[in-house]
């Protein structure tokens, strides 16, 4: 069936468009874009006073399936994504078993075909079992459908293994996403090392733990000419390193999560386990540096690092709680409220960071843009919509959000994937 979206304010950073246009969708593709389209026999969506953007892409999600279906499944994660305005999500390989073989990648893809309402893009492991020792069969995994490679949460400690992985990735022009943490420096750490950790006597993760691995990855990326993407950038020092790298001919990109932008380590005074996340919530100065870097265009993408955990797992003392924040259903309202509606980031820059750039980084040629012939993945936003975050209303299986009860302005109102309305 054909779908006609009328009178929306269409924003497409890829083609530099920001105007009121009608969009006609047929068989999952965008077939026509014009100021005024009149056709018979199509479903019409009135998008007046709404923003129509290329479908949002979250390149950092944990779907937990296979193995930890009590936290999340491909189905519930995709429903949460659709509700949160995302049309494509890339899922990390730290499942049980780890996605380090064709079998698991194929399982995720077939499960997604059966149950998911958004595009699921599996990220495969860089090393077998995420052990940091032997690199995986990257070509086979790529051919099976892996979109990128990462040992997220288990950064490769051995620089030689990292170098070998980067060298090999060039064979496929594959992307390696790194969670940058020197685990010797961060050992036992629960929160950011700073005044609050000193005050609370909580074992801490220093900024240097992130900075050292970012620096290493930059040096190796330069040496190998491979593509590296820094996951969840969180400290000022790492931002400075990113700027340094980007001013040279190094293929490096980076993402930032909403929680690292809108929360600081000081909030841990409540000992709320929903604030326990890795990398940890950082200082006020780090947050300022991240926001400045976004404004100046140094950071490429927003990503959620959606990390669902069951209420029971989080209902324990801080030491015992797992790291992670549930992010898919809060990210877009948070970013719209705190950045776009507060005039810190123009709307088109926001769309670029949450759609255009992730598509480019992941090499998704038919996504992240609105033009004739591309996939009909669209996210429709209402900038003035008031929402109150209520974790009980989450489509995600888990509830671990520190944003429960936050009042925000701006939210996705409709999500279209391949021409199908998957949430409204």
């Amino acid at each position, binding site marked *: 069936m054909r779908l006609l979206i009328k009178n929306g304010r269409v924003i497409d950073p890829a083609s530099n468009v920001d105007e009121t246009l009608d969009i006609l969708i047929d068989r999952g593709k965008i077939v026509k874009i014009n100021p005024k389209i009149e056709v018979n026999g199509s479903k019409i969506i009135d998008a007046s006073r709404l923003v129509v953007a290329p479908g949002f892409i979250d390149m950092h999600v944990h779907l937990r399936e296979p193995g930890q279906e009590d936290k999340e499944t491909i189905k519930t994660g995709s429903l949460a994504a659709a509700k949160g305005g995302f049309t494509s999500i890339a899922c990390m390989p730290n499942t049980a078993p780890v996605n380090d073989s064709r079998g698991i990648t194929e399982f995720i893809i077939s499960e997604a075909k059966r149950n998911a309402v958004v595009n699921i893009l599996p990220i495969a492991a860089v090393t077998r079992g995420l052990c940091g020792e032997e690199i995986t069969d990257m070509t086979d995994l790529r051919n099976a459908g892996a979109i990128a490679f990462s040992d997220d949460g288990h950064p490769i400690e051995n620089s030689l293994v990292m170098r070998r992985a980067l060298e090999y990735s060039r064979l496929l022009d594959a992307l390696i996403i790194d969670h940058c943490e020197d685990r010797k420096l961060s050992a036992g750490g629960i929160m950011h090392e700073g005044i609050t950790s*000193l005050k609370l*006597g*909580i074992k801490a993760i220093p900024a240097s733990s992130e900075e050292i691995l970012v620096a290493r990855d930059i040096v190796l990326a330069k040496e190998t000419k491979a593509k590296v993407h820094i996951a969840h950038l969180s400290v000022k020092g790492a931002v400075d390193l990113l700027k340094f790298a980007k001013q040279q001919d190094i293929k490096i990109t980076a993402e930032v999560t909403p929680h690292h932008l809108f929360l600081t380590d000081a909030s841990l005074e409540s000992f709320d386990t929903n604030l326990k996340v890795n990398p940890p919530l950082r200082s006020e100065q780090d947050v300022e540096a991240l926001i400045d870097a976004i404004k100046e265009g140094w950071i490429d993408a927003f990503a959620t690092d959606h990390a669902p955990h069951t209420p029971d797992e989080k209902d324990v003392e*801080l030491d015992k709680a797992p790291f992670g924040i549930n992010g898919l259903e809060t990210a877009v309202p948070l970013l719209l409220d705190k950045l776009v509606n507060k005039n810190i980031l123009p709307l088109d820059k926001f769309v670029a960071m949450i759609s255009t750039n992730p598509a480019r980084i992941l090499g998704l040629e038919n996504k992240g843009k609105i033009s004739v012939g591309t996939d009909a993945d669209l996210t429709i936003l209402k900038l003035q919509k008031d929402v109150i975050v209520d974790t009980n209303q989450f489509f995600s299986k888990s509830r671990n959000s520190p944003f429960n009860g936050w009042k925000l302005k701006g939210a996705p109102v409709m999500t279209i994937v391949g021409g199908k309305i998957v949430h409204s």
Partner: protein
Amino acid sequence: MPFDHKHLLGIEPLSKLDILTILDTAESFVEISTREVKKVPTLRGKTIVNLFFEPSTRTRCSFELAAKRLSADIVNFNKQFSSVVKGETLKDTVLNLEAMQSDAIIIRHACPGAPHYISAFCRSHIINAGDGAHEHPTQALLDAFTIRQKKKNLEGLKIVIVGDILHSRVARSNIFLLNKMGAEVVCVGPPALLPEEFKEFGIAFDYTLDRAIRGADVIMMLRIQLERQQKNLFPSIREYRDLFSLTPKRFRRAKRNAIIMHPGPINRGVEISANLVDSAKSVILQQVENGIAVRMAVLYLLLGGKERETTD
């Protein structure tokens, strides 16, 4: 009503007046422990649980005696022989104890914030008896009580705290308390155990004990945990002793009437010379003795009044 808290989770949330109320109340309890019948009926019928997840001699016995001298019934939870070893969570453990109608739970736990966590779902009064490296409020209170006995007033005193400040809940609670009471606190220790950022809490710091100790009224020595050395936080016990041990020679640089404190357990001959521990300048055993009166005061102030709706 001067003391309006449901729990004692730390020194940090208390006001100067709250602290004075506890110390003044404790004065009245000292005499009870000197009686032939060391007991008053005040908390008769109240049930208190000593929930200790970490080993303790002084604090656990002190709370137990404090409760018994107020005629409360006290139950000692022993982690080793509990269902915690079978994997029972802290929450379930506490809910089960509460189902037995406890009125107060005294908790010691390795995790900072564990008392705060259980206070969120408990009906009982929660008393923090040490949560990781965070706080140990009754220790700071008994230290303040002991200093007051010797020096009358805390205000304006120079108090030097020496040792592993970073990992010490005793140091934190003392820093918070002494600051509120207007004392001058100087912390001393090797840099890895005394991050410079501690000065944000209103203290001075010094890496040289010989210099810091000059003019001190009170010297508070902390236990140095021998396993820290394996983590390279300082190179060796030998070098630590050379730089940070309290010796008679160093002690002579302090004020003539200075006193020596230590929360225990002591490593004799490591952080402090054995002859100083046993000298007349040491008030270490008075600290222990005063602990009972201070903990009686805390139990009385929390449990002795009407149940209040307010939480803190």
